[in-house]
Protein backbone atom coordinates (compact mmCIF):
# COMPACT_ATOMS: atom_id res chain seq x y z
CA UNK A 1 0.00 0.00 0.00
CA UNK A 2 2.81 2.36 0.96
CA UNK A 3 4.63 1.43 -2.21
CA UNK A 4 1.59 2.26 -4.30
CA UNK A 5 1.28 5.68 -2.69
CA UNK A 6 4.94 6.39 -3.33
CA UNK A 7 4.54 5.41 -6.96
CA UNK A 8 1.57 7.76 -7.26
CA UNK A 9 3.51 10.65 -5.76
CA UNK A 10 6.41 9.99 -8.12
CA UNK A 11 4.04 9.87 -11.07
CA UNK A 12 2.63 13.24 -10.09
CA UNK A 13 6.14 14.67 -9.76
CA UNK A 14 7.04 13.35 -13.17
CA UNK A 15 3.88 14.84 -14.63
CA UNK A 16 4.75 18.23 -13.24
CA UNK A 17 8.30 17.92 -14.54
CA UNK A 18 6.94 16.98 -17.95
CA UNK A 19 4.51 19.89 -17.83
CA UNK A 20 7.39 22.15 -16.98
CA UNK A 21 9.41 20.83 -19.86
CA UNK A 22 6.56 21.29 -22.32
CA UNK A 23 5.94 24.80 -21.07
CA UNK A 24 9.64 25.56 -21.42
CA UNK A 25 9.60 24.52 -25.05
CA UNK A 26 6.33 26.34 -25.62
CA UNK A 27 7.71 29.62 -24.37
CA UNK A 28 10.89 29.17 -26.30
CA UNK A 29 8.80 28.54 -29.41
CA UNK A 30 6.54 31.52 -28.78
CA UNK A 31 9.51 33.83 -28.38
CA UNK A 32 11.17 32.84 -31.61
CA UNK A 33 7.77 32.57 -33.24
CA UNK A 34 6.98 36.16 -32.35
CA UNK A 35 10.15 37.32 -34.10
CA UNK A 36 9.43 35.18 -37.16
CA UNK A 37 5.90 36.55 -37.20
CA UNK A 38 7.09 40.13 -37.28
CA UNK A 39 9.65 39.39 -39.98
CA UNK A 40 7.01 37.55 -42.00
CA UNK A 41 4.75 40.54 -41.60
CA UNK A 42 7.53 42.73 -42.92
CA UNK A 43 7.90 40.51 -46.00
CA UNK A 44 4.19 40.62 -46.61
CA UNK A 45 3.92 44.39 -46.36
CA UNK A 46 6.61 44.92 -48.95
CA UNK A 47 5.34 42.11 -51.14
CA UNK A 48 1.87 43.57 -51.16
CA UNK A 49 3.10 46.98 -52.13
CA UNK A 50 5.72 45.99 -54.68
CA UNK A 51 5.59 42.25 -55.55
CA UNK A 52 9.17 42.10 -54.40
CA UNK A 53 10.49 39.50 -51.96
CA UNK A 54 12.80 41.59 -49.83
CA UNK A 55 15.72 39.37 -48.93
CA UNK A 56 17.19 42.10 -46.82
CA UNK A 57 14.35 41.83 -44.31
CA UNK A 58 16.50 39.94 -41.83
CA UNK A 59 19.10 42.69 -41.93
CA UNK A 60 16.51 45.19 -40.68
CA UNK A 61 16.14 43.04 -37.61
CA UNK A 62 19.90 42.96 -37.20
CA UNK A 63 20.12 46.71 -37.62
CA UNK A 64 17.43 47.15 -34.98
CA UNK A 65 19.51 45.16 -32.54
CA UNK A 66 22.82 46.83 -33.37
CA UNK A 67 21.48 50.37 -33.43
CA UNK A 68 19.77 49.73 -30.10
CA UNK A 69 23.10 48.50 -28.76
CA UNK A 70 24.79 51.69 -29.93
CA UNK A 71 22.19 53.93 -28.31
CA UNK A 72 22.18 52.06 -25.02
CA UNK A 73 25.86 51.26 -24.71
CA UNK A 74 27.64 54.20 -26.28
CA UNK A 75 25.17 57.03 -25.82
CA UNK A 76 23.74 55.69 -22.59
CA UNK A 77 20.21 56.60 -23.53
CA UNK A 78 17.46 55.17 -21.37
CA UNK A 79 15.92 52.10 -22.88
CA UNK A 80 12.51 53.49 -23.96
CA UNK A 81 14.16 56.46 -25.69
CA UNK A 82 16.70 54.22 -27.39
CA UNK A 83 13.96 51.87 -28.47
CA UNK A 84 11.88 54.44 -30.29
CA UNK A 85 14.95 56.12 -31.72
CA UNK A 86 16.03 52.76 -33.10
CA UNK A 87 12.71 52.22 -34.82
CA UNK A 88 12.82 55.64 -36.43
CA UNK A 89 16.45 55.24 -37.45
CA UNK A 90 15.98 51.87 -39.13
CA UNK A 91 12.76 53.00 -40.82
CA UNK A 92 14.76 55.75 -42.43
CA UNK A 93 17.32 53.20 -43.55
CA UNK A 94 14.47 51.22 -45.07
CA UNK A 95 13.34 54.23 -47.06
CA UNK A 96 16.87 54.83 -48.27
CA UNK A 97 17.24 51.21 -49.35
CA UNK A 98 14.07 51.43 -51.39
CA UNK A 99 15.06 54.71 -52.92
CA UNK A 100 18.51 53.67 -54.00
CA UNK A 101 18.03 50.09 -55.01
CA UNK A 102 14.44 49.18 -55.83
CA UNK A 103 13.26 52.37 -57.43
CA UNK A 104 16.06 52.62 -60.01
CA UNK A 105 15.43 49.04 -61.07
CA UNK A 106 11.94 49.99 -62.26
CA UNK A 107 10.67 47.24 -64.50
CA UNK A 108 13.38 44.69 -63.94
CA UNK A 109 12.24 41.09 -63.89
CA UNK A 110 11.84 38.94 -60.84
CA UNK A 111 15.30 37.38 -60.99
CA UNK A 112 16.96 40.75 -61.10
CA UNK A 113 14.91 42.08 -58.22
CA UNK A 114 15.64 39.06 -56.08
CA UNK A 115 19.33 39.41 -56.79
CA UNK A 116 19.20 43.09 -55.97
CA UNK A 117 17.65 42.49 -52.56
CA UNK A 118 20.20 39.77 -51.91
CA UNK A 119 22.87 42.29 -52.83
CA UNK A 120 21.36 44.76 -50.39
CA UNK A 121 21.37 42.14 -47.67
CA UNK A 122 25.02 41.35 -48.28
CA UNK A 123 25.87 45.02 -48.42
CA UNK A 124 24.08 45.88 -45.18
CA UNK A 125 25.82 42.99 -43.49
CA UNK A 126 29.17 44.25 -44.74
CA UNK A 127 28.46 47.74 -43.46
CA UNK A 128 27.38 46.39 -40.09
CA UNK A 129 30.59 44.40 -39.89
CA UNK A 130 32.59 47.52 -40.64
CA UNK A 131 30.82 49.59 -38.02
CA UNK A 132 30.33 47.14 -35.19
CA UNK A 133 32.95 44.51 -35.88
CA UNK A 134 32.42 40.80 -35.93
CA UNK A 135 32.11 40.12 -32.23
CA UNK A 136 28.73 39.41 -30.74
CA UNK A 137 27.59 42.17 -28.39
CA UNK A 138 25.50 41.92 -25.28
CA UNK A 139 22.59 44.26 -24.59
CA UNK A 140 21.16 44.58 -21.10
CA UNK A 141 17.67 43.18 -20.70
CA UNK A 142 14.86 45.68 -20.27
CA UNK A 143 13.84 44.68 -16.77
CA UNK A 144 16.54 42.48 -15.33
CA UNK A 145 17.22 38.81 -15.81
CA UNK A 146 15.85 36.96 -12.78
CA UNK A 147 13.80 34.18 -14.28
CA UNK A 148 10.12 33.98 -13.50
CA UNK A 149 9.28 30.49 -12.41
CA UNK A 150 5.93 29.45 -13.74
CA UNK A 151 4.58 25.92 -13.30
CA UNK A 152 7.95 24.27 -13.43
CA UNK A 153 9.31 26.36 -16.28
CA UNK A 154 11.74 29.22 -15.87
CA UNK A 155 10.86 32.18 -18.07
CA UNK A 156 13.31 34.95 -18.83
CA UNK A 157 11.39 38.24 -18.26
CA UNK A 158 12.67 39.55 -21.59
CA UNK A 159 10.47 36.96 -23.25
CA UNK A 160 7.43 38.78 -21.91
CA UNK A 161 8.75 41.94 -23.54
CA UNK A 162 9.25 40.17 -26.83
CA UNK A 163 5.69 38.91 -26.82
CA UNK A 164 4.24 42.24 -25.75
CA UNK A 165 6.14 44.34 -28.23
CA UNK A 166 5.65 42.04 -31.18
CA UNK A 167 1.96 41.84 -30.36
CA UNK A 168 1.77 45.62 -30.31
CA UNK A 169 3.58 45.72 -33.66
CA UNK A 170 1.08 43.30 -35.15
CA UNK A 171 -1.94 45.10 -33.76
CA UNK A 172 -0.54 48.41 -34.95
CA UNK A 173 -0.03 47.02 -38.43
CA UNK A 174 -3.54 45.62 -38.61
CA UNK A 175 -5.00 48.91 -37.36
CA UNK A 176 -2.89 50.78 -39.87
CA UNK A 177 -4.16 48.76 -42.78
CA UNK A 178 -7.78 48.77 -41.72
CA UNK A 179 -8.35 52.24 -40.43
CA UNK A 180 -5.85 54.73 -41.81
CA UNK A 181 -6.07 56.27 -45.23
CA UNK A 182 -2.51 55.24 -46.07
CA UNK A 183 -3.15 51.69 -45.06
CA UNK A 184 -6.24 51.51 -47.20
CA UNK A 185 -4.34 53.03 -50.08
CA UNK A 186 -1.69 50.35 -49.73
CA UNK A 187 -4.30 47.65 -49.79
CA UNK A 188 -5.67 49.19 -52.95
CA UNK A 189 -2.18 49.07 -54.43
CA UNK A 190 -1.87 45.41 -53.60
CA UNK A 191 -5.08 44.63 -55.41
CA UNK A 192 -4.43 46.61 -58.56
CA UNK A 193 -1.61 49.05 -58.98
CA UNK A 194 -2.82 50.68 -62.16
CA UNK A 195 -6.26 51.28 -60.80
CA UNK A 196 -4.78 52.74 -57.66
CA UNK A 197 -2.75 55.17 -59.73
CA UNK A 198 -5.83 56.15 -61.69
CA UNK A 199 -7.62 57.01 -58.49
CA UNK A 200 -4.82 59.39 -57.65
CA UNK A 201 -2.86 57.29 -55.20
CA UNK A 202 0.82 58.17 -55.22
CA UNK A 203 2.18 54.66 -55.51
CA UNK A 204 5.80 55.66 -55.17
CA UNK A 205 5.21 57.26 -51.79
CA UNK A 206 3.38 54.21 -50.61
CA UNK A 207 6.22 51.98 -51.66
CA UNK A 208 8.57 54.05 -49.53
CA UNK A 209 6.10 53.87 -46.70
CA UNK A 210 5.86 50.11 -46.99
CA UNK A 211 9.60 49.82 -46.65
CA UNK A 212 9.62 52.20 -43.71
CA UNK A 213 6.89 50.29 -41.91
CA UNK A 214 8.45 46.95 -42.65
CA UNK A 215 11.86 48.06 -41.50
CA UNK A 216 10.42 49.71 -38.42
CA UNK A 217 8.60 46.70 -37.04
CA UNK A 218 11.55 44.45 -37.85
CA UNK A 219 13.81 46.81 -35.97
CA UNK A 220 11.48 46.70 -32.98
CA UNK A 221 11.66 42.92 -33.02
CA UNK A 222 15.42 43.02 -33.30
CA UNK A 223 15.83 45.48 -30.46
CA UNK A 224 13.66 43.50 -28.10
CA UNK A 225 15.10 40.07 -28.85
CA UNK A 226 18.74 41.18 -28.72
CA UNK A 227 19.10 40.91 -24.93
CA UNK A 228 18.18 37.23 -25.13
CA UNK A 229 20.44 36.24 -27.97
CA UNK A 230 23.80 37.87 -28.58
CA UNK A 231 23.49 40.48 -31.31
CA UNK A 232 26.01 40.35 -34.12
CA UNK A 233 26.39 41.54 -37.68
CA UNK A 234 25.32 38.20 -39.15
CA UNK A 235 22.30 37.44 -37.00
CA UNK A 236 19.96 38.70 -39.71
CA UNK A 237 20.54 36.10 -42.42
CA UNK A 238 19.02 33.06 -40.78
CA UNK A 239 16.27 35.09 -39.11
CA UNK A 240 15.31 36.63 -42.44
CA UNK A 241 15.25 33.28 -44.22
CA UNK A 242 13.19 31.66 -41.49
CA UNK A 243 10.87 34.64 -41.40
CA UNK A 244 10.38 34.11 -45.09
CA UNK A 245 9.51 30.45 -44.46
CA UNK A 246 6.92 31.65 -41.98
CA UNK A 247 5.50 34.07 -44.53
CA UNK A 248 5.17 31.33 -47.13
CA UNK A 249 3.64 29.03 -44.54
CA UNK A 250 1.02 31.58 -43.65
CA UNK A 251 0.55 32.74 -47.21
CA UNK A 252 2.53 35.52 -48.80
CA UNK A 253 0.31 38.55 -48.97
CA UNK A 254 -1.80 37.71 -45.96
CA UNK A 255 -1.04 39.71 -42.83
CA UNK A 256 -2.86 37.39 -40.47
CA UNK A 257 -1.32 34.47 -42.28
CA UNK A 258 2.16 35.82 -41.65
CA UNK A 259 1.51 36.13 -37.95
CA UNK A 260 0.01 32.69 -37.76
CA UNK A 261 2.83 31.23 -39.83
CA UNK A 262 5.41 32.82 -37.58
CA UNK A 263 4.04 31.39 -34.36
CA UNK A 264 3.40 27.96 -35.82
CA UNK A 265 6.91 27.85 -37.20
CA UNK A 266 8.44 28.96 -33.91
CA UNK A 267 6.55 26.39 -31.88
CA UNK A 268 7.19 23.54 -34.30
CA UNK A 269 10.85 24.44 -34.31
CA UNK A 270 11.10 24.52 -30.51
CA UNK A 271 9.36 21.20 -30.03
CA UNK A 272 11.31 19.69 -32.90
CA UNK A 273 14.54 20.82 -31.27
CA UNK A 274 13.43 19.58 -27.89
CA UNK A 275 12.02 16.20 -28.81
CA UNK A 276 13.45 15.22 -32.16
CA UNK A 277 16.89 16.71 -32.57
CA UNK A 278 18.46 19.95 -31.46
CA UNK A 279 21.25 19.82 -34.01
CA UNK A 280 18.85 19.88 -36.95
CA UNK A 281 16.84 22.71 -35.44
CA UNK A 282 17.54 25.13 -38.27
CA UNK A 283 16.49 22.60 -40.86
CA UNK A 284 12.91 22.39 -39.57
CA UNK A 285 11.96 25.79 -40.87
CA UNK A 286 13.14 24.97 -44.38
CA UNK A 287 11.64 21.52 -44.34
CA UNK A 288 8.32 23.15 -43.56
CA UNK A 289 8.95 25.58 -46.40
CA UNK A 290 9.47 22.75 -48.86
CA UNK A 291 6.41 20.87 -47.62
CA UNK A 292 4.24 23.96 -47.98
CA UNK A 293 5.59 24.72 -51.44
CA UNK A 294 4.95 21.21 -52.61
CA UNK A 295 1.53 20.68 -51.06
CA UNK A 296 -0.14 24.06 -50.87
CA UNK A 297 2.03 26.81 -52.33
CA UNK A 298 -0.44 29.53 -51.40
CA UNK A 299 0.18 28.78 -47.77
CA UNK A 300 -2.42 28.39 -45.05
CA UNK A 301 -4.30 31.61 -45.63
CA UNK A 302 -2.99 32.81 -48.94
CA UNK A 303 -5.47 33.71 -51.60
CA UNK A 304 -3.28 34.64 -54.51
CA UNK A 305 -2.73 32.46 -57.51
CA UNK A 306 0.48 30.59 -57.77
CA UNK A 307 1.06 30.09 -61.44
CA UNK A 308 1.33 26.52 -62.46
CA UNK A 309 2.50 25.59 -65.86
Amino acid at each position, binding site marked *: MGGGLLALINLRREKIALMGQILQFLFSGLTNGAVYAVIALGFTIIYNATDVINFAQGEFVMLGAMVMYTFVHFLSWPIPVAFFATIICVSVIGILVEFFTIRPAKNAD*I*ISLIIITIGVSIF*LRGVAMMIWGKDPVAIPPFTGSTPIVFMGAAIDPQIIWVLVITLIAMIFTQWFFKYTIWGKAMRACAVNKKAAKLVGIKVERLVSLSFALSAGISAAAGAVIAPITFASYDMGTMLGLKGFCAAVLGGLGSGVGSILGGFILGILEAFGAGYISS*SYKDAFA*FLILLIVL*FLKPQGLLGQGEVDKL
Partner: protein
Amino acid sequence: MNIHFGSIRYQYIGLLFFVIFLFLIGFFIKNDYYLNVFVLIGIQAIAVLGLSLLMGYAGQVSLGHAAFYGLGAYASGILTIHYGLNPYLAMFCGMAISALMALIVGLPALRLKGHYLAMATLGFGIIINICFKEMASLTGGPSGLVGIPMLKFLNFTFDTSISYFCLVWSIFIILMVLSLHLVNSPFGRAFRALGSHEAAAQAMGVNTHIAKLIVFIISAVYASLAGSLYAHFVTFISPASFGFICSIKMVTMVAIGGMGTLWGALLGTSILVSLPEFLTVFSDYDVLVYGLILIIVMIFMPEGIVQASIKIFRNFKYKETNG
Protein backbone atom coordinates in the same frame (compact mmCIF):
# COMPACT_ATOMS: atom_id res chain seq x y z
CA MET B 1 15.37 38.82 -71.31
CA ASN B 2 16.92 39.53 -74.67
CA ILE B 3 18.93 36.48 -75.56
CA HIS B 4 21.56 36.74 -78.21
CA PHE B 5 22.88 33.73 -80.01
CA GLY B 6 26.00 33.50 -82.06
CA SER B 7 26.27 31.01 -84.87
CA ILE B 8 28.05 27.85 -83.89
CA ARG B 9 30.95 28.45 -86.26
CA TYR B 10 31.93 31.67 -84.56
CA GLN B 11 31.65 29.98 -81.21
CA TYR B 12 34.21 27.41 -82.33
CA ILE B 13 36.61 30.10 -83.46
CA GLY B 14 36.22 31.80 -80.11
CA LEU B 15 36.84 28.48 -78.42
CA LEU B 16 40.04 28.00 -80.39
CA PHE B 17 41.33 31.39 -79.31
CA PHE B 18 40.46 30.51 -75.76
CA VAL B 19 42.40 27.25 -75.88
CA ILE B 20 45.45 29.10 -77.19
CA PHE B 21 45.00 31.58 -74.38
CA LEU B 22 44.96 28.74 -71.86
CA PHE B 23 48.15 27.31 -73.33
CA LEU B 24 49.84 30.66 -72.86
CA ILE B 25 48.77 30.84 -69.23
CA GLY B 26 49.88 27.32 -68.50
CA PHE B 27 53.20 27.94 -70.16
CA PHE B 28 54.11 31.30 -68.73
CA ILE B 29 52.79 31.26 -65.22
CA LYS B 30 55.24 29.34 -63.11
CA ASN B 31 54.08 30.40 -59.68
CA ASP B 32 51.88 27.65 -58.26
CA TYR B 33 49.82 30.07 -56.29
CA TYR B 34 48.49 31.88 -59.35
CA LEU B 35 48.06 28.67 -61.28
CA ASN B 36 45.87 27.53 -58.41
CA VAL B 37 43.69 30.59 -58.83
CA PHE B 38 43.15 29.64 -62.46
CA VAL B 39 42.38 26.07 -61.49
CA LEU B 40 39.75 27.32 -59.07
CA ILE B 41 38.29 29.54 -61.78
CA GLY B 42 38.06 26.53 -64.03
CA ILE B 43 36.37 24.37 -61.41
CA GLN B 44 33.82 27.03 -60.55
CA ALA B 45 33.27 27.77 -64.21
CA ILE B 46 32.13 24.20 -64.76
CA ALA B 47 29.50 24.55 -62.06
CA VAL B 48 28.46 28.00 -63.22
CA LEU B 49 28.22 26.77 -66.81
CA GLY B 50 25.53 24.37 -65.72
CA LEU B 51 23.74 27.03 -63.75
CA SER B 52 23.82 29.39 -66.67
CA LEU B 53 22.10 26.78 -68.81
CA LEU B 54 19.37 26.70 -66.21
CA MET B 55 19.10 30.39 -65.55
CA GLY B 56 19.84 31.84 -68.94
CA TYR B 57 18.52 29.41 -71.41
CA ALA B 58 15.69 27.93 -69.40
CA GLY B 59 14.83 31.02 -67.41
CA GLN B 60 14.71 29.31 -64.03
CA VAL B 61 16.39 30.40 -60.82
CA SER B 62 18.20 28.15 -58.40
CA LEU B 63 19.29 29.68 -55.10
CA GLY B 64 20.60 26.44 -53.69
CA HIS B 65 23.01 25.21 -56.31
CA ALA B 66 25.83 24.99 -53.77
CA ALA B 67 24.02 21.89 -52.54
CA PHE B 68 24.83 19.98 -55.73
CA TYR B 69 28.36 21.34 -55.73
CA GLY B 70 28.72 20.13 -52.16
CA LEU B 71 27.08 16.79 -52.85
CA GLY B 72 29.67 16.09 -55.53
CA ALA B 73 32.49 17.15 -53.24
CA TYR B 74 31.27 15.14 -50.26
CA ALA B 75 30.44 12.09 -52.36
CA SER B 76 33.97 12.10 -53.67
CA GLY B 77 35.42 12.73 -50.24
CA ILE B 78 33.36 10.27 -48.25
CA LEU B 79 33.43 7.40 -50.75
CA THR B 80 37.17 7.63 -51.26
CA ILE B 81 38.13 8.11 -47.63
CA HIS B 82 35.64 5.96 -45.74
CA TYR B 83 35.02 3.28 -48.35
CA GLY B 84 38.19 3.34 -50.41
CA LEU B 85 36.25 3.64 -53.64
CA ASN B 86 37.97 4.49 -56.89
CA PRO B 87 37.84 8.30 -57.21
CA TYR B 88 36.33 8.23 -60.68
CA LEU B 89 33.64 5.85 -59.53
CA ALA B 90 33.01 8.10 -56.55
CA MET B 91 32.74 11.08 -58.87
CA PHE B 92 30.20 9.23 -60.95
CA CYS B 93 28.26 8.29 -57.83
CA GLY B 94 28.24 11.94 -56.83
CA MET B 95 26.80 12.91 -60.19
CA ALA B 96 24.20 10.17 -59.95
CA ILE B 97 23.17 11.27 -56.46
CA SER B 98 22.92 14.88 -57.56
CA ALA B 99 20.86 13.92 -60.57
CA LEU B 100 18.53 11.95 -58.33
CA MET B 101 18.17 14.82 -55.85
CA ALA B 102 17.54 17.22 -58.69
CA LEU B 103 14.82 14.92 -59.96
CA ILE B 104 13.20 14.67 -56.52
CA VAL B 105 13.27 18.40 -55.89
CA GLY B 106 12.53 19.35 -59.47
CA LEU B 107 9.53 17.17 -60.12
CA PRO B 108 7.19 19.03 -57.73
CA ALA B 109 9.08 22.33 -57.59
CA LEU B 110 9.18 22.97 -61.30
CA ARG B 111 5.42 23.18 -61.45
CA LEU B 112 5.73 26.52 -59.74
CA LYS B 113 6.85 29.71 -61.41
CA GLY B 114 8.87 32.75 -60.57
CA HIS B 115 10.12 33.29 -57.07
CA TYR B 116 8.61 30.15 -55.63
CA LEU B 117 11.16 27.95 -57.34
CA ALA B 118 13.93 30.12 -56.04
CA MET B 119 12.59 29.57 -52.54
CA ALA B 120 12.32 25.82 -52.99
CA THR B 121 15.92 25.55 -54.10
CA LEU B 122 16.91 27.93 -51.32
CA GLY B 123 15.29 25.71 -48.72
CA PHE B 124 16.80 22.62 -50.30
CA GLY B 125 20.26 24.16 -50.33
CA ILE B 126 20.11 25.11 -46.67
CA ILE B 127 18.82 21.71 -45.58
CA ILE B 128 21.61 19.93 -47.44
CA ASN B 129 24.16 22.28 -45.90
CA ILE B 130 22.84 21.55 -42.42
CA CYS B 131 23.12 17.85 -43.16
CA PHE B 132 26.76 18.35 -44.12
CA LYS B 133 27.30 20.03 -40.78
CA GLU B 134 25.42 17.56 -38.64
CA MET B 135 26.15 14.13 -40.10
CA ALA B 136 29.56 14.37 -38.50
CA SER B 137 30.44 10.69 -38.50
CA LEU B 138 30.15 10.70 -42.26
CA THR B 139 31.15 14.22 -43.23
CA GLY B 140 33.45 15.25 -40.42
CA GLY B 141 30.97 17.87 -39.28
CA PRO B 142 31.67 21.61 -39.30
CA SER B 143 35.39 21.01 -39.20
CA GLY B 144 35.30 19.25 -42.51
CA LEU B 145 36.86 16.29 -44.22
CA VAL B 146 40.62 16.06 -44.40
CA GLY B 147 42.89 13.93 -46.49
CA ILE B 148 40.94 13.42 -49.66
CA PRO B 149 43.23 11.51 -52.06
CA MET B 150 44.38 13.13 -55.24
CA LEU B 151 43.30 11.95 -58.65
CA LYS B 152 45.41 9.37 -60.44
CA PHE B 153 45.45 8.17 -64.00
CA LEU B 154 47.38 4.94 -64.54
CA ASN B 155 50.74 5.81 -62.98
CA PHE B 156 50.35 9.54 -63.10
CA THR B 157 49.09 11.48 -60.06
CA PHE B 158 47.49 14.87 -60.53
CA ASP B 159 49.38 16.40 -57.66
CA THR B 160 50.86 19.50 -59.24
CA SER B 161 49.10 22.72 -60.00
CA ILE B 162 49.93 22.57 -63.69
CA SER B 163 48.65 19.02 -64.12
CA TYR B 164 45.37 19.91 -62.43
CA PHE B 165 45.17 23.07 -64.51
CA CYS B 166 45.31 20.98 -67.67
CA LEU B 167 42.80 18.48 -66.32
CA VAL B 168 40.22 20.98 -65.20
CA TRP B 169 40.33 23.18 -68.27
CA SER B 170 40.23 20.19 -70.60
CA ILE B 171 37.05 19.10 -68.88
CA PHE B 172 35.69 22.61 -69.12
CA ILE B 173 36.38 22.83 -72.85
CA ILE B 174 34.69 19.48 -73.43
CA LEU B 175 31.65 20.54 -71.43
CA MET B 176 31.58 23.89 -73.21
CA VAL B 177 31.49 22.15 -76.59
CA LEU B 178 28.75 19.85 -75.32
CA SER B 179 26.75 22.77 -73.99
CA LEU B 180 27.09 24.75 -77.19
CA HIS B 181 25.79 21.81 -79.17
CA LEU B 182 23.00 21.30 -76.69
CA VAL B 183 21.91 24.88 -76.95
CA ASN B 184 21.93 24.77 -80.74
CA SER B 185 20.15 21.45 -81.06
CA PRO B 186 16.38 21.11 -81.54
CA PHE B 187 16.13 20.28 -77.86
CA GLY B 188 18.16 23.34 -77.05
CA ARG B 189 15.89 25.49 -79.14
CA ALA B 190 13.01 24.12 -77.12
CA PHE B 191 14.41 25.27 -73.91
CA ARG B 192 15.49 28.57 -75.31
CA ALA B 193 11.84 28.95 -76.09
CA LEU B 194 11.12 28.26 -72.44
CA GLY B 195 13.34 31.08 -71.44
CA SER B 196 11.66 33.52 -73.77
CA HIS B 197 8.06 32.76 -73.19
CA GLU B 198 6.76 29.74 -71.49
CA ALA B 199 3.12 29.90 -72.51
CA ALA B 200 4.02 30.23 -76.16
CA ALA B 201 6.39 27.32 -75.85
CA GLN B 202 3.63 25.20 -74.41
CA ALA B 203 1.29 26.27 -77.15
CA MET B 204 3.83 25.08 -79.69
CA GLY B 205 3.80 21.65 -78.14
CA VAL B 206 6.95 21.82 -76.06
CA ASN B 207 6.61 19.75 -72.92
CA THR B 208 7.84 22.46 -70.59
CA HIS B 209 7.75 20.44 -67.41
CA ILE B 210 10.05 17.73 -68.76
CA ALA B 211 12.28 20.24 -70.51
CA LYS B 212 12.77 22.26 -67.33
CA LEU B 213 13.43 19.12 -65.35
CA ILE B 214 16.07 17.91 -67.77
CA VAL B 215 17.90 21.23 -67.71
CA PHE B 216 17.76 21.28 -63.92
CA ILE B 217 19.24 17.82 -63.73
CA ILE B 218 21.97 18.67 -66.23
CA SER B 219 22.93 21.76 -64.26
CA ALA B 220 23.03 19.69 -61.07
CA VAL B 221 25.33 17.12 -62.67
CA TYR B 222 27.71 19.84 -63.89
CA ALA B 223 27.85 21.28 -60.39
CA SER B 224 28.46 17.88 -58.88
CA LEU B 225 31.33 17.17 -61.24
CA ALA B 226 32.85 20.52 -60.33
CA GLY B 227 32.47 19.72 -56.64
CA SER B 228 34.29 16.42 -57.04
CA LEU B 229 37.13 18.11 -58.90
CA TYR B 230 37.30 20.65 -56.09
CA ALA B 231 37.51 17.95 -53.45
CA HIS B 232 40.39 16.16 -55.12
CA PHE B 233 42.21 19.42 -55.70
CA VAL B 234 42.14 21.05 -52.29
CA THR B 235 41.97 17.65 -50.51
CA PHE B 236 39.96 19.37 -47.79
CA ILE B 237 36.29 20.30 -47.77
CA SER B 238 34.05 21.79 -45.13
CA PRO B 239 30.35 22.70 -45.05
CA ALA B 240 31.17 26.39 -44.91
CA SER B 241 32.20 26.28 -48.57
CA PHE B 242 28.82 24.98 -49.69
CA GLY B 243 26.36 27.27 -47.99
CA PHE B 244 23.96 29.99 -48.94
CA ILE B 245 26.76 32.43 -49.78
CA CYS B 246 28.23 29.96 -52.25
CA SER B 247 24.88 29.59 -54.01
CA ILE B 248 24.51 33.34 -54.20
CA LYS B 249 28.03 33.70 -55.58
CA MET B 250 27.22 31.24 -58.34
CA VAL B 251 24.06 33.14 -59.22
CA THR B 252 26.05 36.36 -59.21
CA MET B 253 28.59 34.89 -61.59
CA VAL B 254 25.88 33.99 -64.05
CA ALA B 255 24.11 37.32 -63.68
CA ILE B 256 27.22 39.44 -64.00
CA GLY B 257 28.57 37.60 -66.96
CA GLY B 258 25.27 37.62 -68.74
CA MET B 259 22.48 35.14 -68.43
CA GLY B 260 22.05 34.75 -72.14
CA THR B 261 25.49 33.50 -73.07
CA LEU B 262 27.67 30.61 -72.00
CA TRP B 263 30.74 32.78 -72.29
CA GLY B 264 29.11 35.06 -69.80
CA ALA B 265 29.34 32.27 -67.25
CA LEU B 266 33.08 32.05 -67.81
CA LEU B 267 33.55 35.78 -67.59
CA GLY B 268 31.47 36.14 -64.46
CA THR B 269 33.36 33.33 -62.78
CA SER B 270 36.75 34.74 -63.74
CA ILE B 271 35.90 38.12 -62.34
CA LEU B 272 34.40 36.96 -59.08
CA VAL B 273 36.93 34.24 -58.27
CA SER B 274 39.92 36.45 -58.95
CA LEU B 275 38.40 39.47 -57.24
CA PRO B 276 39.50 38.45 -53.71
CA GLU B 277 43.06 38.28 -54.97
CA PHE B 278 42.92 41.95 -55.89
CA LEU B 279 41.06 42.84 -52.77
CA THR B 280 43.58 41.26 -50.40
CA VAL B 281 44.10 44.69 -48.94
CA PHE B 282 40.43 44.92 -48.17
CA SER B 283 40.00 41.28 -47.33
CA ASP B 284 37.37 42.10 -44.75
CA TYR B 285 35.37 44.26 -47.05
CA ASP B 286 35.02 41.81 -49.87
CA VAL B 287 31.57 41.09 -48.50
CA LEU B 288 30.61 44.71 -48.88
CA VAL B 289 32.10 44.96 -52.34
CA TYR B 290 30.25 41.84 -53.43
CA GLY B 291 26.96 43.29 -52.35
CA LEU B 292 27.70 46.56 -54.09
CA ILE B 293 28.68 44.83 -57.31
CA LEU B 294 25.50 42.79 -57.24
CA ILE B 295 23.32 45.82 -56.73
CA ILE B 296 25.02 48.00 -59.29
CA VAL B 297 25.25 45.36 -61.97
CA MET B 298 21.65 44.27 -61.59
CA ILE B 299 20.36 47.82 -61.69
CA PHE B 300 22.41 49.12 -64.55
CA MET B 301 23.40 46.04 -66.47
CA PRO B 302 20.70 43.50 -65.78
CA GLU B 303 21.56 41.58 -68.89
CA GLY B 304 25.11 41.13 -67.72
CA ILE B 305 28.47 42.53 -68.68
CA VAL B 306 28.82 40.63 -71.93
CA GLN B 307 25.51 41.80 -73.31
CA ALA B 308 26.11 45.30 -72.05
CA SER B 309 29.46 45.31 -73.79
CA ILE B 310 27.87 44.12 -77.00
CA LYS B 311 25.31 46.88 -76.78
CA ILE B 312 27.97 49.47 -76.18
CA PHE B 313 30.01 48.12 -79.06
CA ARG B 314 26.98 48.05 -81.34
CA ASN B 315 26.03 51.58 -80.44
CA PHE B 316 29.56 52.69 -81.04
CA LYS B 317 29.70 50.95 -84.40
CA TYR B 318 26.33 52.37 -85.34
CA LYS B 319 27.45 55.88 -84.52
CA GLU B 320 30.62 55.38 -86.55
CA THR B 321 28.89 54.15 -89.67
CA ASN B 322 26.29 56.88 -89.48
CA GLY B 323 28.68 59.74 -89.04
